[in-house]
């Protein structure tokens, strides 16, 4: 059962409607997919048709044109209902690169189809095996050849490429030491995956501890039309950075949803499960950790909300976006741990879904940016300490 704060946050009517949709995708739906590591096609279809994934696309391009706070409410409710928004959250925000830096022609061509769900743009290729978090060291190169770019290299951990029509790809168009700064010389290309696979692009799925459709990509002379360059050549790193605040805030909102799921489940179980002739929740040793998880979640949620508010007001929000992702991912993890402890042995049984959610929420302390890198951002940019990377 939900805790009393149900639907009292921002956008109560959207939250309620999302929860209602999610109720049709209960635990056994996700468990069956988890066994097969299969993609939740029906769930994503339902969200698409109901218009939730185009929430951030401006109305002139066919979306709902709502603020980031509304997208946060949607993702939070998805996670809180026990579903997994990780399968499709990127359809909400990957288009931001196109929206902010694409030409009017590109926007006209792609955004309305992305808004309707006819085109899926939910793959975002940055990470490489050799560069890790140090993005300026990516080695995937695109060389100009007439009216095409020719791409060679590889990427790793690129999610949903098998369930996306388009991919935003970061490549080097000039060597790292050629420009004034190491972050110069990178560019963003829009790759049409439907044409690319088998024509210079190979996709290899990676099996992970949770059901997350992530892959490895190999580029071997893949030709991409030059008109698919987004913005100016050489400025791609800035374009990618621009989208990161939105991504971090949205993922933080998902973590809040996870945390609330765990707190809801733990409190309801603690109230029902009787051992020694009374509910285990009557013991402070059981209820205090749940209460603490709730406190931690509410604190993190306040920062997520503040980050979204600043983002929507057009204010600087780098620090808040990063801090909210750190706090929310840790709150979700702590709540998950407490939930398993509250369930005892049953926390490990697949049919209770706790262990699945526990595996799923662990990701967000690593991706899209790991905790250490957030701490180094805060140390450097907020506290003025020497740069550690």
């Amino acid at each position, binding site marked *: *059962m939900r805790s009393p704060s149900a639907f009292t946050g921002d956008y109560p*009517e*959207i939250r*309620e409607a999302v929860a*209602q949709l999610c109720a049709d995708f209960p635990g056994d739906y996700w468990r069956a997919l988890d066994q097969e590591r299969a993609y939740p096609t029906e769930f994503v279809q339902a969200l698409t048709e109901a218009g939730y994934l185009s929430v951030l696309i401006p109305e002139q391009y066919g979306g*709902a044109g709502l603020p980031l706070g509304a997208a946060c409410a*949607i993702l939070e409710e998805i996670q809180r209902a026990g579903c997994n928004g990780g399968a499709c959250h990127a359809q909400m925000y990957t288009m931001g690169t196109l929206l902010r830096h694409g030409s009017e022609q590109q926007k006209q061509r792609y955004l309305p189809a992305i808004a309707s769900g006819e085109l899926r743009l939910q793959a975002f290729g940055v990470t490489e095996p050799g560069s890790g978090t140090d993005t300026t060291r990516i080695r995937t190169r695109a060389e100009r050849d007439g009216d095409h770019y020719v791409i060679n290299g590889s990427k790793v951990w690129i999610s949903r490429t098998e369930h996306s029509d388009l991919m935003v790809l970061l490549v080097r168009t000039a060597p790292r030491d050629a420009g004034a700064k190491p972050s110069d010389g990178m560019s963003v290309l829009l790759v049409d995956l439907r044409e690319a696979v088998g024509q210079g692009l190979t996709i290899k799925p990676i099996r992970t501890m949770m059901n997350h459709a992530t892959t490895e990509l190999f580029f071997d002379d893949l030709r991409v039309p030059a008109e698919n360059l987004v913005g100016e050549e050489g400025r791609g790193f800035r374009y990618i950075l621009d989208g990161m605040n939105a991504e971090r805030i949205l993922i933080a909102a998902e973590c809040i949803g996870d945390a609330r799921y765990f707190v809801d489940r733990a409190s309801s179980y603690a109230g029902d499960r009787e051992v020694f002739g009374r509910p285990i929740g009557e013991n402070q040793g059981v209820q205090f950790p749940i209460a603490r998880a709730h406190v931690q979640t509410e604190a993190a949620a306040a920062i997520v909300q503040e980050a979204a508010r600043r983002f929507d007001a057009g204010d600087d929000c780098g620090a808040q976006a990063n801090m909210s992702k750190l706090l929310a991912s840790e709150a979700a993890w702590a709540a998950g741990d407490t939930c398993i402890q509250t369930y005892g042995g049953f926390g490990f049984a697949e049919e209770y879904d706790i262990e699945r959610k526990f595996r799923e929420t662990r990701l967000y302390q690593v991706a899209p940016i790991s905790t250490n890198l957030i701490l180094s951002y805060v140390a450097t940019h907020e506290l003025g300490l020497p740069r550690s990377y």
Partner: protein
Amino acid sequence: MKVLVAVKRVVDYNVKVRAKADGSDVDLNNVKMAINPFCEIAVEEAVRLKEAGTATEVVAVSIGDKACQEQIRTALALGADRGIQVETEGAVEPLVVAKLLKGVIEKEQPQLVILGKQSIDGDNNQTGQMLGALTNMAQGTFASEVAIDGDKVNVTREVDGGLQTVSLNLPAIVTTDLRLNEPRYASLPNIMKAKKKPLDVHTPADLGVEPKAHLTTLKVEPPAERQAGIMVESVEQLVDKLKNEAKVIS
């Protein structure tokens, strides 16, 4: 054709309700509320009639305190065109609801009125029938299919022996059963539009009705807990227990 649908705010069907400690009622404190599932089916049916070009306007009405405006907005998000709230306080019993709905019908003059066959809180299954009697309109209850046919509506009813189809003169009253349709999800653009759709508030006095209570709830208690079952070892033992302990066969 104008269609009027009635929607009620009830405890969400997923909630495990508890009786209040003093046994006076179900405990509604901090409990999630939602649109009654049968009412949702009624809204869906009305919206489908509009999409098919049969209905021109769908009006959703709810009777209750201010909170029931949430359920009216849900109906608007599903596709109703405007809402009416009849503002009342506390519990309203089926006869009063039927009288208030009669008042709304007189103001709105709909050709078709669709209600849920019952609401999942009181499970009374009375309002539609009472409304039929009060307004002298034809009624088709427990509908699993509704088809407009000129100035008539054909309603397929789920009755004990199977299905029965009745043909009613319009204006008519229909109450919905579970299998009539599967309600859609409210879409995000429609949720946003719903906020801007008109919602009028009437008092019972506006409709010439004085809400009166004819019923008093004496006691609400949870159902008896089920005893744990036992595993029998053989068919003989099962038959023996059915015969001699449960006494359901002889």
